């Protein structure tokens, strides 16, 4: 399998639990990178802290495993100082949107070219199953023993409002779509957000009686629908999948080149 050319095989089998959706994200991402024919030397993967963030150790790219929530801030320094690099930033939902929420909206606002992947399993897995900002009202977690009273927010709407020029959502059930979306996100010249619904059978699934990994993926199949589908009109509770935003917008590093031109009076 050619995707094996893109991993650090000596660390396999990986440390994720049986059935963890993060492995499917890794699988789909590697296929996307392979299909795009990218060189490993041009990719920097920057991750934060949590189960999801361990992905950076498994890929044979330049890899930067950083601090909880701060991946996009480190990535901004990498990209801004060497814009020719392709920067991929996988994050967990708590990582990206709780502790890293501020960095997330500001990276989106700048429209700096990088691919932010939110691996949304609706739980803090590494620390043992506490509720995350995306767990949702009424869910169970070790820190919500009497049901969660926190509302979640919609990552797609948040990313759109913050100014991301590419916004998409998919799930681990839809592995082919995931690869296609990730490919589009990676080649997009601007800030790309891809929310991937991914299963944590160990904590979210068990706490919320959703069955094993396969049953959780069936839930993704049965509760999501392509953007603008007839099914969505009939059942507004369905979660839409696909590319929500894909627009041309001046990219931040390119914009800074204009700053340099203005500062140097056009002599740069």
């Amino acid at each position, binding site marked *: 399998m050619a995707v094996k050319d893109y991993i650090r095989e000596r660390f396999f089998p990986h440390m994720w639990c049986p059935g963890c959706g993060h492995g499917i994200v890794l699988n789909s991402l590697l296929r996307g990178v392979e299909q795009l024919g990218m060189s490993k030397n041009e990719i*920097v993967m920057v991750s934060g802290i949590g189960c999801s963030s361990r992905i950076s150790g498994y890929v044979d790219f330049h*890899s*930067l*495993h950083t601090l909880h929530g701060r991946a996009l*801030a480190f990535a901004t*320094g*990498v990209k*801004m*100082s*060497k814009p020719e690099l392709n920067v991929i930033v996988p994050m967990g939902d708590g990582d990206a949107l709780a502790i890293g929420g501020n960095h997330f909206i500001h990276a989106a606002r700048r429209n700096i070219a990088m691919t932010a992947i939110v691996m949304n399993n609706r739980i803090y897995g590494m620390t043992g199953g506490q509720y995350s900002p995306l767990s949702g009202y009424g869910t169970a977690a070790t820190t919500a023993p009497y049901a969660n009273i926190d509302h979640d927010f919609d990552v797609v709407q948040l990313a759109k409002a913050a100014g991301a020029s590419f916004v998409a959502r998919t799930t681990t059930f839809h592995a082919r779509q995931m690869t296609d979306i990730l490919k589009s996100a990676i080649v997009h010249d601007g800030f790309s957000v891809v929310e991937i619904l991914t299963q944590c059978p160990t904590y979210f699934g068990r706490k919320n009686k959703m069955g094993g990994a396969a049953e959780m993926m069936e839930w993704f199949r049965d509760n999501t629908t392509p953007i603008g589908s007839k099914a969505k009109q009939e059942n507004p509770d369905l979660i839409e999948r696909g590319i929500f935003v894909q627009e041309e917008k001046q990219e931040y590093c390119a914009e800074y080149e204009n700053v340099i031109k203005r500062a140097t009076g056009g002599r740069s």
Partner: protein
Amino acid sequence: MNDNIKFVQGNEACVEAALYAGLEFYAGYPITPSTEIAEHMAVRLPKLGRRFIQMEDEISSICAIVGASLTGHKAMTATSGPGFSLMQEGLGYAIMAEIPCVIVNVMRGGPSTGLPTSPSQSDVYQARWGVHGDHAIIALTASNHQDVFEMTVHAFNMAETYRTPVILLLDEVIGHMRERLEIPGPEAIPVVDRLRTSVRAGIDYHPYLPREDGRLPMSDFGSEHRYNVTGLAHDMWGFPSSNPGVVHGLLRHLTDKIKNNVGNITRHKEYYLEDARTVLISYGSSARSALHVVEHQRARGERLGLLELQSLWPFPYGLVEEKCAYARNIIVVEMNMGQITRAVKRAVKDPERVVLANRIDGVFITPTDIKNILRLIQGKGV
């Protein structure tokens, strides 16, 4: 007219020095009294085709400079007390992952929002121990703009030499005061460039394996060596490890590379110490008042001397002990409740000789303040 002579704030002197040292990337967040550093960077960097970014906070600022440093660019940020608190997490990361970068803290009164526009030197211990976990740190300081320039260049040089973040502790008086600065000619102050690995593509590169001289050659992100960087305890390839031997070796290395080089890192100035019976020890803007007192009392025949510390961490215990060996009295002049005084007491024999002359009320410590303490010691009353 000589273009190299300027009348500038200390903050601007710091900017000019950083550019002289080869700074290519600045990330920061506005905070008094350091803001002029960001403002001047925003003007100067793009003129040189280099990059400036104003981040969303201090946390992201230090993270961004670490990212930029990994692509092979010299990087820095500047802040003040509360912002420096926010940077501790990223500072710890830079220490652990051994990423060269410079963090300027233009100190103001604290704790919390404290006295944003008033001088203080109360972050000396935050610089030393703000980061959790055992570690060593390099912190430099300066008392005039020419020294700000020189110490800023040294900060970059030490960051590259020891592959570590270096803290430059300025204070509000130094940052905002205007005085003469002469920009040294090219190569007047040596500049240490990034040490890059000579290991060729296809050969196993170890980002965390020190050479015989203790230095660790780096490889830029984007070049032929793909390796891992993490804040976790890690092996010589940069991959997480909890092997006790590896962890022990790493922590010892992080500490020893600085501790064993105290002599090379230490910077100081001395005035009239040869026969001094009373030794003043000071740093930063306080050292200006201390020097004034020394010169004034010398003119009246009193045997006073000044040891001005330009590097605070690692603390030069040996130097302080030696310079104070024959002193009857040692007066530490600083604008805090005795942060360096504590270190001086640990350094010298007969620590009861050590007295603190300080101000903590947001008012710059004057020669009169110091003289009052001196008179008390001499039994003359105030």
